[in-house]
């Protein structure tokens, strides 16, 4: 017998709970066992609605009921018998039905987000990333620790960062559990490590380059790169949860970055602070790293002459400034 339509009764998650193959019209829907599709829902009438074939297609004909029928999001007005669109969603009482008609145009096949496969494909890069991060953190610790500092202190400090990362990735993995039915810890770890390392390395490299060529703006660029890397990381995390919403997430994160960044810039500009980064380049590197030629004292001091103009402009800016005095807890954020 030819299948004219498919009526799926959906559960709360939108998954089919019961499927009816329709081989002849009309189809009566209700709680009574005389109906073609019997719904076990106290909010559904004995005979709740009928799907009828007319000349122009299948129509919904609601019966006289308390709760009525919704087509998509709109309630069907009493007396109207609308035409069923393709892949229509009907709500009868508290039950959702999806009606698919023969001959409907199907959306193209979508690529599967198989987290298993994702993790298998990235296992090598993940291992490399973990090794790189461990080395990086170790180097950083060696660089900043003083000789003779107790090992236990160093160990705590060394473990704090990975512990934080594990918590971060576990939280995202719980998100994956919710939307993708899989605790995709390794996939999230891969995303987190990749972008975190990208940000950290970009920041470190630009700081060194800024010193080498005496270009403080490179350091500022590195600060921006770090923020962008973190934003990308969050975007990728979100993409793992709901791949079909990646575009929307991208727009949301970009807007958040633009708004937050704009507010920050406005605030720093009002406080007469540099818009990005520190007041001056704080990096000191190896003597061999220095590529820029030093200038004589006189030339350096002369190069500060234009500051007078800026400062004179600043003295006139905003006399509202009953700001706090120089405080001990000064913090030049990045």
């Amino acid at each position, binding site marked *: 017998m030819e299948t004219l339509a498919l009526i799926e009764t959906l559960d709360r998650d939108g998954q089919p709970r019961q499927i009816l193959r329709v081989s002849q019209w009309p189809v009566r829907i209700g709680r009574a066992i005389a109906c073609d599709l019997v719904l076990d829902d106290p909010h559904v009438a004995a005979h709740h609605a009928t799907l009828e074939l007319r000349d122009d297609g299948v129509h919904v004909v609601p019966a006289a009921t308390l709760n009525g029928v919704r087509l998509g999001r709109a309630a069907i007005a009493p007396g109207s018998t609308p035409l069923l669109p393709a892949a229509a969603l009907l709500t009868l009482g508290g039950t959702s039905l999806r009606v698919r008609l023969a001959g409907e145009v199907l959306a193209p096949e979508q690529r599967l987000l198989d987290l298993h496969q994702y993790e298998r494909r990235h296992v090598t890069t993940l291992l490399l990333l973990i090794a790189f991060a461990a080395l990086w953190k170790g180097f950083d610790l060696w660089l900043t620790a003083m000789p003779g500092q107790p090992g236990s202190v160093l160990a705590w400090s060394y473990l704090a960062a990975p512990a934080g990362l594990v918590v971060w990735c576990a939280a995202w993995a719980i998100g994956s559990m919710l939307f993708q039915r899989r605790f995709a810890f390794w996939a999230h770890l891969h995303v987190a490590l990749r972008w975190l390392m990208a940000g950290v390395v970009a920041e470190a490299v630009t700081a060194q380059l800024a010193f080498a060529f005496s270009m403080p703006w490179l350091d500022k660029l590195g600060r921006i790169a770090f923020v962008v890397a973190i934003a990308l990381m969050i975007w990728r995390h979100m993409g793992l949860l709901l791949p079909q919403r990646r575009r929307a997430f991208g727009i949301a994160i970009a807007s958040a970055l633009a708004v937050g960044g704009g507010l920050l810039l406005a605030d720093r500009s009002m406080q007469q602070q540099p818009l990005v980064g520190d007041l001056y380049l704080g990096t000191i590197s190896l003597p061999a790293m220095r590529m820029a030629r*030093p200038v004589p004292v006189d030339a350096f001091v002369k190069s500060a002459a234009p*500051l007078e103009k800026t400062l004179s402009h600043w003295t006139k800016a905003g006399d509202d400034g009953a700001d706090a*005095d120089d405080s001990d807890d000064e913090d030049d954020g990045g």
Partner: protein
Amino acid sequence: MIKARNAGHGARGSSPRRFRSNNAHKAAGYDGSMPLNRLLRRPGRLLALLLAGSALAAWAGATAPGTPRTAAPASPLARPPAAASAAEPGDEHDDSANLSASARRIYDVGRPRLLQVRTLLRDQDSQASVGSGSLVGPDGLILTNYHVVSQMALEPQRYRLNFQTVDGVAGALQLIAFDVVHDLALVRMAQPPAAVASRGTFEFRPQATPLAQGERIFSLGNPLDIGFEVIEGTYNGLVERSFLPQILFSGALNPGMSGGPVLDDRGRIVGVNVATRRDGQNISFLVPAEFAQALIARSAHAKPITGPVEAEMARQLLVHQQQLTTRFIGLPWRETKHAHYSVPVPQEDFMRCWGSSNPSESKGLSFERSDCQMDTAIFINESLRTGDIAVRHEVYDGSRLGALRFAQEAGMSFRNERMGRRTHDLTAPKCQEDFVENAGLTMRSVMCLRAYRHLPGLYDVAVLSQSVDAKTEGVQGRFDARGVSFQNALLLASHYLQGFAWKRSP
């Protein structure tokens, strides 16, 4: 500079620009009295101006009626706080007990011409701060400290001045003139009461007959707003190595006595109470009378100041900074003993240098520090001192660290320097940075300037410089000058950076 993490010198290593918060004074029970100075823990740094301030309000609840005083208390703040005597163990008590016969005579002479100068809120009778003053000229001309009247001078829309004599005569005061550099001011009674004319005025001791060290002198004033006092002490000459001359007086001055006269044994003014050291006992400072005489000669007949005072203040400060800059640049840098580096360390003609180093058993970066500052800074307002110079440096030996870790440590120390933020008085700093070479030494140098928002033509300059020529040793220096002209800021920066050099033959 290196932070506490290395050797616990954090409190000193930080910028000399910062002032201690008011909480510190509150704890000490001196709220309105301001430390002229900046760094804690240093022997010889804590100056307090002798202005009794609003902290008294907090004590006013615990009053002890019946404490003898002559002035009629008009507001609750003027009532004698019992807590005050507990907070100041013994000093004034002992002195009053030992009043000598000459002190009694001096007080009797000075009493009619002695006053309390009170800063009141414009629209009510609450006092914001109190100091002392003396009648020095006709028509009720009164000599006091600039810092006693600074609130009214800077914000006449919020404050007004009032006087009260020992016998309770009171009235309004007008600002006539000030010498912000020496912390002096002249005020005049708006309507001098008839009684005042007959009181006469204080005379000044002729400069031709200077005091000898050890001579007895007598300070008059109204400490802590609890009553007029005469304090007997000793003249000890001028404070050593002070750019601005100040008399060292061994006597127990207290907040509220600011601006009061100090008399010789014939009742002639030799100085004006101005400040005391908070870390010492009976170490007090007086403005020499010659500056008061000069101010009176210059301005006794001036009209009351009604407009803004900032332009005149800036003019005086510009004169001062020119003298300071010229004198500072005229002095050669001192020889430093380091094997490889010549570092600019100032002569101690008007600065004091303190040195420190981290313990030799330290396994990390070892360093030696030198920290030179001037003892005098000029009071502008509660949150602004200016007109001084500070020079610091640290010499690092990172041979136990290796090149990479040394660079990291040097960078940490370079980065954590404070340059200040935008405040009510100053703009935010704006910096210029580059690699700079002088006499064979290559440095990473940063020069930051801030402009005074209300004092045109004045700037703070900070120069930070870190040597970048050696793998495991280096020197980091910082120079600060406050309240200098832009040209002098550049001149001083240049002078400072030229003090660095690489010594070719170790």
